[in-house]
């Protein structure tokens, strides 16, 4: 039998973990755990998982898993990581990594000192267009990065958003960066690979997009704009709850070409320099971009045909790389420095947006 996997935390996101773990046929999901036994039971029953627990120590002792997926709110990530590595587990962590940057550092330190491996669920970065962008960048197609724009739309009217707004005690409201902290990893982790600076200049501003976004008396900030300036590359990070359609995009302006990734449509198109002059030159770009979109569309059809077009396909890929890194004792799929840079940037943003949380 391959790796034995267990999950701690049986909320909504645990469904995605179960489904993506199961697509990897060399590993086995042996047990799930939640402090709330009803939640552990429902996940185990729905997915016919052999055993469930409401005590993570008991699960780790009885099941001896190789990997623990931690899908609890971030308040418990550090403590659970410590328990996991002490029990000899590698850790796959749901984002956000931790409440505070120092906790993220402690998590990585715990894992490294125990000789274990860790990955964070940065799944959009492992979707096919993201991987293609990475290859493009590494092979020099884009040239040097000049500017990056990362946009993340959020639907507060959706089920999760509605639950957040209804429940002032929701764990998301108890994080220093509140709503933003729950998703900002996905905005910033697309920018950091193009920034070489450890501490770029960061200016952040946030506001409440409309009165109806207020939750139980306390205004919920739901629009965030961040300007980031490194020594050679700048970036804009945008989080918006009100822009429609709810988009998820990345634009990388390079010294040679500009790439545009649409994570919702799963496309990557390249905007190239014009080589023909004047009015004739202006005729070509729309056709070139259209050709790119057509090619991307056909690739997606092909992925669909081969059942590689699931919503969380990036997570499947990331898990596959993570499990391989454990089995082959190779580098994990996400560099720890990358995780820490994202975490550090997030904290600097929250210090500006919610200064009271850092007094």
């Amino acid at each position, binding site marked *: 039998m391959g790796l034995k996997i267990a999950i701690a935390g049986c909320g909504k996101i*645990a*469904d995605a973990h179960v489904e993506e773990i199961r697509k990897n046929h060399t590993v086995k999901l042996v047990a799930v755990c939640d402090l709330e036994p009803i*939640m552990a039971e*429902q996940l185990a029953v729905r997915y016919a998982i052999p055993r469930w627990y409401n005590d993570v120590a008991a699960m780790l002792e009885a099941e001896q898993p190789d990997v623990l997926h931690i899908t609890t709110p971030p308040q418990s990530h550090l403590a659970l990581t410590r328990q996991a590595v002490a029990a000899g587990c590698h850790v796959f962590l749901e984002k956000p990594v931790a409440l505070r940057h120092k906790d993220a550092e402690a998590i990585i330190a715990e894992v490294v000192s125990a000789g274990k491996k860790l990955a964070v669920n940065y799944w959009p970065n492992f979707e096919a267009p993201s991987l293609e962008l990475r290859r493009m960048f590494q092979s020099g197609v884009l040239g040097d990065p000049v500017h990056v724009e990362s946009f993340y739309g959020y639907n507060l009217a959706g*089920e999760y958003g509605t639950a957040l707004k209804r429940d002032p005690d929701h764990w998301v409201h108890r994080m220093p960066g509140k709503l933003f902290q729950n998703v900002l990893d996905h905005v910033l982790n697309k920018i950091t690979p193009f920034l070489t600076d450890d501490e770029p200049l960061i200016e952040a501003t946030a506001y409440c997009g409309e009165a109806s976004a207020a939750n139980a008396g306390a205004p919920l900030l739901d629009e965030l704009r961040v300007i980031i300036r490194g020594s050679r590359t700048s970036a804009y990070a945008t989080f918006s709850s009100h822009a429609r359609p709810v988009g998820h995009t990345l634009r990388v302006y390079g010294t040679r070409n500009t790439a545009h990734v649409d994570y919702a449509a799963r496309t990557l198109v390249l905007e190239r320099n014009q080589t023909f002059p004047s009015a004739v030159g202006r005729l070509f770009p729309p056709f070139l971009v259209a050709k790119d979109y057509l090619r991307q569309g056909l690739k997606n059809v092909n992925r669909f045909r081969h*059942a590689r077009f*699931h919503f969380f396909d990036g997570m499947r890929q990331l898990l596959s790389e993570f499990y391989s890194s454990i089995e082959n004792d190779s580098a994990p799929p996400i560099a720890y420095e990358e995780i820490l840079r994202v975490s550090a940037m997030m904290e600097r943003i929250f210090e500006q947006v919610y200064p009271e949380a850092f007094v």
Partner: protein
Amino acid sequence: MKILVTGAGGFLGTHVVERLLAHGYTDIRCFLRERSKAEPLIKLANAYPAASVELSFGNLKSKTDCRRAVENVSAVFHLAAGLKGSAAELFADSVVVSRNLLDALAAHGQEQLKATRVVLISSFGVYGVASLGQGALVDEQTPLERHPEWRDPYSHSKLRQEQLFWEYQKQAGFELVVLRPGVIYGPGGGAFSNRVGLKIGPVFFHLGGSNLLPLAYVVNCAEAIVVAGLHADSAGQAYNVHDDELPTAAQYLRAYKRDVKRIRSLRIPYFVTRLLAGRLESYHRKSEGQLPAIITRYKAAAAWGGNRFSNAKLHSLGWRPIVAAPDAMARTCAYLREHSE
């Protein structure tokens, strides 16, 4: 007698409070999560000045709020439940909160607990109808679902919730009455139950055909909850709740098109639904979930297999619908017409 109504601000909750007041109960604690839903209850309180209608705000996920909710009550009408969202959210909103509430009740002294009447609003979804033949009668003797994980998460969570209440009742000995409403409808409610069909994109796929719809008009349902909930002979019993004159899914859809608004619908015969469900199920399995198995043969049999229904047990307690079916339908259509945009 102080009566607690959880979910009092909801579609059904307000009507239950109104029926309790109309039946002469004068000490009611309305427990609700959102202050924005308090207005109808305030109106009720004003309409019954001699009664004490206490509004208590909180979240049953909080054990402290649960303890506060059950303080000094001798009857509990538990209506609060998750209606939509992921399976995890439904279990958290229906089952976990129920367990919290039951734990808070269990903290009462044994003597007080035995004298407490607990009324749970369950659902028709708890019945294991998928294996019944077409036209089989669904009454309180129908076996409960044996494979809730094969059904929709709502039915699964409601079954687990009901099981939890029976488990606690056995241990704690309080008086438990379970009401299992069919499709609750009326002003303030939705237009279509899945039993009629599913709207996918711009088209409404009419899947219910000539099946009977177990409709329960919200006022009649609230009346049933109050009558059965506090009846001297109902402890330890479960009751189906639906109106007397039930339309078919096709009749309901026709009335909607005639009295609310025109919609594009496509009638799919049951055998075609089963066939498509089988294909989707098989593709879902083969593709490891690339398309969600929103319809499986099991789900199709449960929703559109076609059953008959009985509310005779409820009638035996003396319940009678307050609003006759044609009037109920007319009021619902008028509301839906007004809110159709």
